[in-house]
């Protein structure tokens, strides 16, 4: 059964912020090693869904199951250690650290829980090698010693991907990775996502750029006003009348 291989299962998740119902009874399943897209108009609840999966805050109701384990109430630091990595819609760099150190923070996920290892030096030969390889992969190796805050946004986005990969994740959540990128930058980011998937990592991405979704995603879910209104292959989604309506507004 395909279902038993699903890496991420979201069941009846709702989230309420004071007066705002950001998510309403959303359920979806993400299969292993696929690239799964989430689309929807502004304010549809896409980022909220990522925050719930990654443990930034718990849902008001519903469950999140990762690799068969209930992670609904786990905080972000623990979901990270289980193998859920993410990037942010608005870049979240450690601005006054070098690009290399930014990536190394992600390499420490096995250390932070062990008091005995916290005192040891972080920049070992091995850790530096691993981080440089990741920076090479995202094309930032020559900026390793630059302060992260000095990089243009497009490069900080790539750095966030490298940093997330430093967790050795099984699931990578990308929140609008192509926002604000030029055509060329978008192309190379798509290549990068492909490469990541080739290594066996499951990718879930929120993306407004339909070209990116059509090219990359195996499956797409559509959110509108906190409700999942459709799910299917990119081509099915593109011609789904409910989706067209959500994006273009009801005609007549």
């Amino acid at each position: 059964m395909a279902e038993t291989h699903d890496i991420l299962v979201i069941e009846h998740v709702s989230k309420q912020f004071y007066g705002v119902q950001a998510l309403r009874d959303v359920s979806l399943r993400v299969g292993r090693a696929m690239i799964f897209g989430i689309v929807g108009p502004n304010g549809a609840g896409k980022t909220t869904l990522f925050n719930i999966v990654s443990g930034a805050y718990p849902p008001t109701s519903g469950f999140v199951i990762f690799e068969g384990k209930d992670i609904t109430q786990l905080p972000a630091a623990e979901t990270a250690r289980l193998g859920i990595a993410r990037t942010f819609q608005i870049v979240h760099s450690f601005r006054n650290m070098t690009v290399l150190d930014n990536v190394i923070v992600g390499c420490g996920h096995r250390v932070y829980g062990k008091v005995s290892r916290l005192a040891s030096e972080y920049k070992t030969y091995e850790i530096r090698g691993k981080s440089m390889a990741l920076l090479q992969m995202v094309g930032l190796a020559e900026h390793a010693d630059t302060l992260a805050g000095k990089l243009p946004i497009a490069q900080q986005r790539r750095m966030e991907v490298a940093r997330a990969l430093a967790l050795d994740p099984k699931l990578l959540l990308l929140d609008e990775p192509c926002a604000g990128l030029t055509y060329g930058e978008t192309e190379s980011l798509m290549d990068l996502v492909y490469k990541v998937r080739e290594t066996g990592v499951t990718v879930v991405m929120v993306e407004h750029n339909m070209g990116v979704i059509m090219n990359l995603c195996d499956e797409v879910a559509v959110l509108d006003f906190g409700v999942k209104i459709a799910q299917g292959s990119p081509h099915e989604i593109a011609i789904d009348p409910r989706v067209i309506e959500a994006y273009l507004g009801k005609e007549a």
Partner: protein
Amino acid sequence: MYYATVAITVGIFMMLTMGLNIITGYTGQVSLGHAAFFGIGAYTSALLSVKAGVPFWFALPLAGLITAAIGAILGAISTRLHDDSLAITTIGINFVVVSVFQYTQFFGGALGIGGIRYPSVFGHTLTKPEYLLVVVLCILLGIWFDRRLVRSWLGLALRAVGQNEEAAQSLGVPSARFKIAAFAIGTAYAGVAGSLYAHFMTFINARDFGFPTSISIISMAVFGGLGTLRGAILGSLALGLAPEVFRPLVNYRNLMYGALLVLMMRFQPSGLIGDGSFIWESRQRVTLRLYKPKAVSGGEK
């Protein structure tokens, strides 16, 4: 003797600023009540000395440890607070601690604690220059610890939490625990500074550890450049010596610190020599220009 007194005072403030730099500079937890821990260290050491006859050499590290423990507890309370509310809470902590000292008989009440013994070695009471040496050794130890911290996983995690807590958590850093660690370490510095102060003055009063003292400490950290050890050292040196160099200013010390704080925030938020400050950036541009040819030829091999 006068110079030794000034140097000892500046040295004590250097310890305080280095500790605050770990809490506020590295870990981003704004503390406007650092003097409370200075006071806790001083009172701990004074009581150990006066009431229990503990020699300075044991009272000093004990003051550091006990202050760290109290700092960790207050840090644990603070982990639920952010930015503004944390800043206000730490001010509150400062006032509460001062009041407890001032109105509790056990802590000497309004009179404070006197008769604290000046340290001695084998019956020889230290001279002021010798005491200065002790202060300098404590500072060197503090600097060594800071350098080790910055190179360790612990230090990396603290800086990550300080620069973007949400990102740090998403990378597996349990931020609350690390904030508590930062408070424990930073207040340990303050505890040692308090002990050095108590045994040097031999008489302490709750007023010495009030909110204005906290403002002095944060001014030093901000002036030099929050988030860097060199900034903490330079800031405490400069602001600690300024009132001595310009004697007429002594009575306007707080006014001067306050004004500097405002000016720095407006024109050089990274401090005099912090990362991103005008001076530090220029220095790096110069070094880059000087070393570039070498680096290029090295890279071609």
